[in-house]
């Protein structure tokens, strides 16, 4: 049997061939969480550039662009890499490499073999140039209307993205376009696949991030039609938490449980609350801080001998910005130890990776679910950022809430149907968490 590494290599070669052999104008690559998406983007860009052709990379946020610029410039020390930016952009120090040029007009980067910029920036570019190659990263986060503006700039295009993440958003009710094959509210990939049914997406076969304990669940709950495997085997990733002697609390218990099994669900008593429910927020902060206080160690393929879990390797995720603000304050109140823990919304955690994550369940304390809370991408992002363990905090009653949720969403003819359904995905995750539950008594 081939190793995960070999399988990933074979796939990468396949994708490179499909892209460069002059077949269809578009190639799509679906990537599960942590399957080496940006590595793939960097590598393909580097290979084309090395072969002598100019290539453009399109990303969705400035942070993604900076990250890709560094990756690609490091791979190509002898070639110039351009960073297309808005006026007044201040590059972070990491981007200031000798072979990186920064400009707000693409015609000011004539010597750059690779030019990287956000989709929004490419949509403003005024140029007579047409590039033979373009790679679009996080293509599922991009709305399809953006494609209309950038596609004319490029000949052959490679779209890489994670279909399980959050769909692009608009405050507009897009009912008038529902069912149209070019519905501008849909993601770029959804639209281009609908209009080009002969394009069959490639799938990256290995998640290097998710531990074996998470791969199965994430796959069945959020990627029901994909097959990917964990790049590590059972036991390769381990979390060790020194035992506490006396006064072991529910927080300690859930940490121990998650250290052993990769999952923990700290369940608070049932109550309908505001979404910034102080008790849940406090419990979430407690778990994050307690992980550090107890001197948690992780061992993995990167550090087989084990290493101390640091604040920077922990993320706390929530659905809403006010929840993030409340947790941030709660962590600050717990002193310096919490400095460096990333607290953010699912939206902003997309693409990021940590060793341990602590999640405030989006449905905790609610009376009803809304489409916002049921979006499968939201829960998918939150439960697929970790390399070792994920601890969910929430109030009791979420399964009952889901069971009582009315299934009466409007249906449009010929609409894009996306699987999994958020309700199903939530049920699947909860069913799994119910086996890793610790009750917190307040």
């Amino acid at each position, binding site marked *: 049997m081939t190793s995960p590494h070999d399988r990933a290599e074979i796939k990468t070669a396949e994708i490179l061939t499909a892209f460069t052999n002059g077949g269809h104008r578009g190639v799509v690559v679906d990537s599960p969480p942590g399957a080496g998406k940006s590595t793939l983007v960097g590598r393909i860009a580097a290979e084309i550039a090395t072969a002598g052709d100019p290539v453009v990379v399109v990303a969705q946020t400035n942070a993604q662009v900076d990250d890709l610029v560094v990756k690609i410039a490091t791979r190509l020390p002898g070639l110039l890499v351009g960073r297309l930016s808005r006026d007044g952009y201040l590059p972070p120090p990491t981007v200031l490499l000798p072979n990186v040029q920064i400009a707000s007009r693409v015609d000011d980067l004539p010597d750059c073999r690779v030019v990287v910029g956000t989709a929004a920036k490419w949509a403003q570019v005024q140029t007579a140039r047409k590039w033979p190659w373009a790679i679009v990263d996080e293509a599922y986060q991009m709305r399809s209307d953006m494609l209309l503006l950038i596609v004319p700039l490029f000949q052959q295009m490679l779209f890489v993205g994670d279909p399980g993440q959050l769909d692009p958003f608009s405050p507009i009710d897009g009912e008038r376009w529902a069912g*149209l094959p070019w519905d501008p509210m849909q993601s770029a990939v959804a639209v281009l696949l609908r209009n080009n049914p002969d394009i069959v997406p490639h799938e990256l076969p290995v998640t290097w991030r998710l531990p074996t304990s998470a791969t199965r669940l994430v796959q069945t709950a959020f990627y029901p039609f994909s097959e990917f495997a964990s790049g590590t085997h059972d036991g390769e990733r381990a979390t060790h938490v020194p035992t506490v002697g006396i006064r072991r609390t529910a927080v300690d218990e859930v940490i121990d449980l998650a250290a052993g099994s990769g999952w923990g669900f700290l369940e608070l008593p049932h109550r309908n609350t505001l979404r910034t429910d102080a008790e849940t927020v406090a419990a979430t902060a407690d778990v994050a801080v307690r992980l550090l206080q107890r001197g948690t160690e992780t061992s993995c393929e990167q550090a087989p001998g084990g290493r101390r879990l640091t604040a920077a390797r922990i993320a706390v995720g929530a659905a809403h*910005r006010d929840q993030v603000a409340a947790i941030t304050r709660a962590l600050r109140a717990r002193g310096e130890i919490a400095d460096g823990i990333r607290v953010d919304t699912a939206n902003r955690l997309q693409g990021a990776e940590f060793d341990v994550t602590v999640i405030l369940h989006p449905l905790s304390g609610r009376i009803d679910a809304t489409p916002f809370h049921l979006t499968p991408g939201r829960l998918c992002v939150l439960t697929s950022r970790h390399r070792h363990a994920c601890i969910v905090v929430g109030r009791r009653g979420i399964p009952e809430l889901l069971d009582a949720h009315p299934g009466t969403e409007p249906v449009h003819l010929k609409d894009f149907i996306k699987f999994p359904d958020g309700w199903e995905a939530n049920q699947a995750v909860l069913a799994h968490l119910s086996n890793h539950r610790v009750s917190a008594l307040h």
Partner: protein
Amino acid sequence: MTVLTSLAKALAAYSMTPQQLTVYRHLHISSKPIVIVPLTLAGETNAPLAAMVGPDRARPTLIVTRQPRDRAERIEFAGRLASELLFPIETAAQQTQATGAGPNARVRVVDAPQLWVPNPAGIEFVRTLGRMTRLRFIEGPWAVPKKVRDLGIWLTWFAEQAEFADTGALIAATQAIAAVWATGQSDLEDGNLAAQMAWLAPPEGMDVAAAVSRAENPQLCPPAGPSTDPTFDRLFLEPALRDLATARTPAAHNAVHRRLTAMVEEQMRPTWELVWTAIDLLRDVPEAPRVPKRWEQQRDRFTSFHRYVADGGRPQAKRDSAGRSAHRLAELEQRMAAFEAQRAYDDPLVIADHRLTGEAFAGHVVDVDAARRVPGLRRNVLRPMVTVATGDQIHLDVGQHMYDPARNGQQAVIESVIETEDGWRIELELQNQMGSGLTAKPGSVPALGEDVTYTSVTETFVRRRPWPTRDETPWTHGGPPPDSTPVVEDAAEDWS
């Protein structure tokens, strides 16, 4: 909806009195609104049965189809409605003024028509009637009068304008009322104009509770349409239609038609009155400062669309092409963002909403460095620093752009956020609107001790390349689609 709205609803339910959601009215109200109360025949796709229409509350024009199932009669109905609507449209278009002095001045109508319908279903009626008539031919075997096709083009324009958050062209009374007042019932119940108005203007001598319960009885308060009450259909309309179909002589037909006219008038009249009462109530609410500017833009849109129609512009396509979809979505988003920002800048209750969600804060200035300068590209530039203390709960990060409603949206960037014992201290670097001199022009920098408000909402505008035309539709969107010019099949389209 936000906590402030929810609280207002609770207060309304508790006191049995409607509660204001905004201090101002953010909708322009025409001095001569045109109200349309439509009724359609159940079971068919937008088969017009009757309409009460006009700019005069006391003298509505009543249009009742002579046979709702007959194609020619439907065209006739559309023609009569066209006579009512195209005249005010033309009248408005004829009175223009220059947008300013100088070579770039354009022409703008002095006033634009404004249509009112009872509810969102009324807007849907306008849209569908527009679709039904705009693709017809005005010559050849299936010809309809030109005014019918023109009506279709205009109704479609009004319905499309109604999709914009800041619309002033076609308004549903229930939505206009709900934008200003919370009642003590749910949004769903507010969708019934009679039930909603029972809170705002209960009949003489009736309390709100009794008025609401009366409003929910379709026999006492007929539905605001376009769908009719099923009981009315069974007891009155169906027999009348049957008699209409079997009337043998013109006299008999006329007699039945008079009966039909009387009964549908009875169904429409209460709604007609309610819409006018709603307009009067809204007119009494003070207008927000930025309303005239928005109405000016709406007049521009009307002016330019009128020119398009006058120049023989093609009727709107059945569905948006790829480029058209993207263009429209961008415009919808842009106008919504601008409207939201303008409302917040104008209205203390709207800004309070943003403060509660942590996207705005109000406080007082505790420190000012008005003369502060930082190195710019060529020379030092003026960047005053203002420190504000607030008790609001904020969820804002360093680097966030904020805007000062009191200074026409002056931009400031958050430099630091520090939690204090009783709230937050926020340092802001002012960015613009201070004049071009070395010192800030008077009043452009908040003074020490001044009460200030900052919000993160702004009228964003992203400049992009133009969207592709139909012929430029890229491969990702299926390439260029077939032409959308109406074809013979559209003109011959069955309508029964």
